Every structure is written in C-alpha cells, then in structure tokens.
C-alpha cells in the first residue's frame, strides 16, 4: 500500500481497528498463505470487507477463543500465515494457556492482534478493558509484543509481524480519529525503538497511544525548560536495551503506558535498569493497579494521569 499524506490521514480517521481490517485486506491480495481467524468480531475488527473479499481465507470460530488458538496452531503448522484477532482480554487471557503451549512452548508462528486494548472500552466496564495483556504475555518465553503508536504503525506492525519468524502479539490502543504520531513514511523494525524527539533532562519511554500523549507532555516540559526525549517503544518484547543504555544520562526516566503499572513496559524497562550500577530514577505512569469505576476513554485517561498535561505534571513534580 502507498504510504502518503492521504493514506496516513485515512488510517488515522478510521482508527486502529479499521486499519487492521484494511491492512489484512491489502496483505492478502499479495499473500496466498494468509488466513484470518476471529471469534465473531469481524465488524469490530474491521474485517467485514476481508470476509466478503476472501471467504476462503477467513475462518470465524464463533465465541470460542481457546479453540481459535488451537485451530490457528494447526493451520500455522501447515505453513499458513495466521492472523487471529478478537478483543484484547479474550485474545490474551481466555486462551492464555493455549498461547503458552502452542505459541510459546511449540513456537508456532501466529500473529495475534488484541483489539481495543487499554481503556478505550471503559464505558463497557473492565471486562472489556485490557490492562493486563502485556504483563501476562511478557512472561511467556518467545512471544514478541508490539504496541503501535498510531494507525500507520498498526499497518507496519502487521506487515512485519506476518514476516517475523516467531509468534507475535500486536496490542491496539486508541480509537478512530486517533492522533498521528508518524507523519511521513519511515522504517519500522521490530525490536528497534524510535526516538521521536531528543532531549537531555528527561526521557519518556512510551508505547501505544501514550507516545502521542508523551509528545504532548514534552511540549509542556520544554516550555518549562525541561529538555525532554521521547522514545516510541513500539516493541515491548524484545526490549530495545540499547536505547535505555543511551538514556542513562537523563536525570529522570518515565515509562508511560495505557496498561497496568505492573507487568508492562514500566516493568520491562525497570528489569533492565536495575542491572545497571548508575541509573536515574524511574517513574511509572500507567493504570494504577486497580479495577476502578469505568467511564469514557478521555475521562479514564485523565483519571489515570495518562494525558500530556498529567504526564508533564508528574515529571515536573519529580524534577523540582
């Protein structure tokens, strides 16, 4: 697919889920081995056109996630490129042991996409929010975890994940009309973070929807004379240790994620940091290890200090 201003804007308008469906459709045109498996979520995952265009590449397993992962594994073992998708909690937790055995232990190459992860479905309650997926999957050896920063990166992640030699999980956060982080085409490599903005006082390591919010925070911080680096940690596992190593001169490190503060990007960064003799302090910005009352997406982002303004405030408080 051509990446230009128009397509980037279109991706952003339709949001991560519709981008997923569109991306799968584009990839399937040139890849005879791609098959897509869902659990009765073709519309939610933007896959209605895919289903109609490629009925022989589309399998709906009904509302049965454990079976979906098993069936995906059987197909992968017959050399198909398999994409599975459903809402993030069901994609990662309902079938967690199947993921452990089939993708982890057996190393079968499947690309799982968790749609509407994080807090975006907050009005539906925490059954449908997902603040645990990264923590859970990170503990299973061999699974690559990608959290795209915007819709363009969703497309790029999917393209790379389907070519990746091992199993992958793509975590989609945000909603339609989601902010554009990557304004022009760029090189996306799994495991290689992208430093979007340089700065020497503070480094913000962010993933998914929080990359944009961290850029917003950086604007405020710069106005307050705090030089801020923003790193798009789109791959949470394997972690880009080199960029952390190169950020040790900062006075403060902050990890920012639309995920529980336990188990996710913050934990991953901290696991590496703690092996270093000299290191700056790290603060964890994320959902505060609680199943709280639900609400609209923006409301919950505010509540958990996950907006540019709140992130900047937290950093400034530490820097005083």
């Amino acid at each position, binding site marked *: 697919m051509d990446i230009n201003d128009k397509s980037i804007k279109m991706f952003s308008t339709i949001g991560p889920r519709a981008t997923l469906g569109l991306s799968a459709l584009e990839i399937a045109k040139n890849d005879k081995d791609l098959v897509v498996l869902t659990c009765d979520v073709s519309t939610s995952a933007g896959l209605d056109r895919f289903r109609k265009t490629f009925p022989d590449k589309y399998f709906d397993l009904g509302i049965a996630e*454990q079976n*979906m992962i*098993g*069936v995906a*594994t059987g*197909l992968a073992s017959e050399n198909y490129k398999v994409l599975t998708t459903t809402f993030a909690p069901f994609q990662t937790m309902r079938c967690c042991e*199947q993921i452990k055995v089939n993708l982890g232990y*057996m190393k079968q190459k499947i690309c799982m996409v968790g749609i509407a992860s994080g807090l975006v479905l907050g009005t539906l309650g925490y059954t449908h929010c997902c603040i645990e997926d990264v923590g859970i999957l990170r503990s299973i050896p061999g699974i690559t975890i990608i959290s795209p920063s915007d819709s363009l990166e969703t497309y790029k992640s999917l393209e790379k994940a389907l070519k990746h030699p091992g199993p992958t999980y793509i975590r989609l956060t945000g909603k339609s009309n989601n902010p554009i982080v990557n304004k022009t085409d760029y090189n996306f490599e799994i495991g290689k973070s992208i430093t979007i903005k340089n700065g020497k006082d503070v480094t913000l390591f962010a993933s998914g929807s929080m990359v944009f919010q961290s850029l917003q925070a950086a604007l405020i911080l710069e106005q307050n004379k705090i030089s801020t680096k923003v790193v798009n940690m789109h791959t949470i596992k394997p972690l880009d240790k080199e960029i952390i190593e190169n950020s040790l001169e900062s006075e403060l490190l902050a990890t920012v994620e639309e995920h529980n503060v336990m188990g996710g990007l913050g934990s991953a960064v901290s696991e590496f940091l703690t092996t270093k003799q000299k290191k700056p302090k790290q603060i964890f910005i994320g959902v505060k290890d609680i199943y709280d009352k639900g609400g609209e997406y923006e409301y919950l982002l505010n509540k958990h200090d996950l907006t540019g303004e709140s992130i900047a405030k937290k950093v400034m408080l530490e820097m005083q």
Partner: protein
Amino acid sequence: MKSSSQESINKIKIFALNIRKKILDMSLIAGADSSHFGGALSIVEIVSVLFSDIMRINKENPLWEDRDRFILSKGHACLAYYAALSEIGYISNDELKTFEKNESNLLGHPVINRNLGIEFSNGSLGMGLSLGIGVCLGLKKKNMKNQVYVVLGDGECNEGSIWEGAMSASNFNLENLTVLVDHNKFQQTGSNDEIMKLDNLREKWISFGWETIEIDGHDIEKLKYFLAKDKEKKPRAIIANTIKGKGFSFSENNNSWHHAVMTKKFYDQAKEELEKNFKL
C-alpha cells in the same frame, strides 16, 4: 461387516504385542519417576490399528507431506505413542531408553519433534482436538486428501475446549477428521462417574453433529473396519470402550496404575502374562 484378512489382523496383533512390550520396558526405565501406565495401555489397539494399518505413513520420511496426521491429545498416554513411533522406525530403541531422562526428546508428555514423528506438544488436556481441526482446515484448503486422527481421553472430555472444538469441526464439515475417544471410564483420581459424569458420550458427540460410532476399543477387527469405512460429509467420532491398564491382570481397571512405579516384580509378571495370553 466385511471381515479383514486374518493376515492383516495378525500383523496388527503383533504390532500391539510389541507396543505393550515397549511400554513395559519404558515404564521400568522411568523407575521411581513412574509413568502413565494405565491410560497408555487402554489405547494400544487404537494406535496399533492406526500406525500399522490405517494411516498413510512413509517409513523413510516422517516429514512426508502426504502423511496422515496423528495427534495424541491425551498426551500422558505417550508411552503407547512413542512405542508405535519406534515400531515404524522413527524412534530408535536406544532413544526409547531415554524416556523421561534429562534432556530427552521423550518426556512424560509429547514434545513436538516432527523428525521423530511427534506432530505437536501435548499434555495439557483439551487442546489436541483444536490442533487437529486447524490441520484439517489447512489440508482441505490445499485440496490434500490426508486424514487426521485425534485421540482424546474420556476424562479429557471434562474440558470445555473439547466441546468448542467439537462444535466447530462439524460446522466446517471436516470429513478428514476422526476423533477416537479412549473411553476407559477412569480419570486421574477416580471413575468418570465419581469425578464428573459423562453420561452418554455417544449421544453427546451425535448432538454436536458428528458421525458417531461406539465400539470395543480393543477389538482390532472392528477398529480397522470403522476407521477404513467411507465417511459421511462430517467428522467422525469413535467412542472406543476400553479397559484402563489393559493387558495385565494387576493393572486392568485398577486406577492406582494411572501413574505408577513399575517394579521388577510386576515387570516380570507382566512379561510372563504377555507371552501366555498372546494368540494369533
């Protein structure tokens, strides 16, 4: 039922005899670590008919694309599986002796190793049927004629994922799929009736849209007949009524042999019984 030639039945009987001998040897090797003895013995005839007669196999090439696929969903019964793979030449007798030893390819539950003929890692119950469904869908999509055989335990049918799979296999009209339920009436800590009633398994599989047959799972002739029989355009379930620990007086229907230590005394007794009871 058209009877098979005595010669072909005798061949399977000898295969089954050899599997039981190898199960005994491996369980003795496992020593104090013990092994899943009873549930392996109940599937000996099932795997023997499949591996020595029914399945398309290339003895020179375990990776042969046209091979039929075998999935041991009740992975703890791997003694019978490893023995069968050894009988067809994929696993050497020396390798069998590594059963459950450090760094072995042959642990107490199968670990995927296509060079040895082990199609998938199994052991966590309730997962093998879904794997088989995925393989069947993939084969059908490529217009390949291979058959897929999945062996389930009856206790394993407690798992909800089995019924997710059962529902979807008939939904996709998978006529290339056969499930054999090893219905030995026991599970780890008691009988099916004591732990979780299965009631009429046959009716359950019929109601999920499967062609369902219930037979004596130690009757080689019947197994061969129904496994070879032309299929309807739907998946087939064979409820194989079996005896846990089949073959030895001390272990038959004795659930303490679910996972037990094989002593030299029992080993010698079992060897003696095998020779004495074997008839062609």
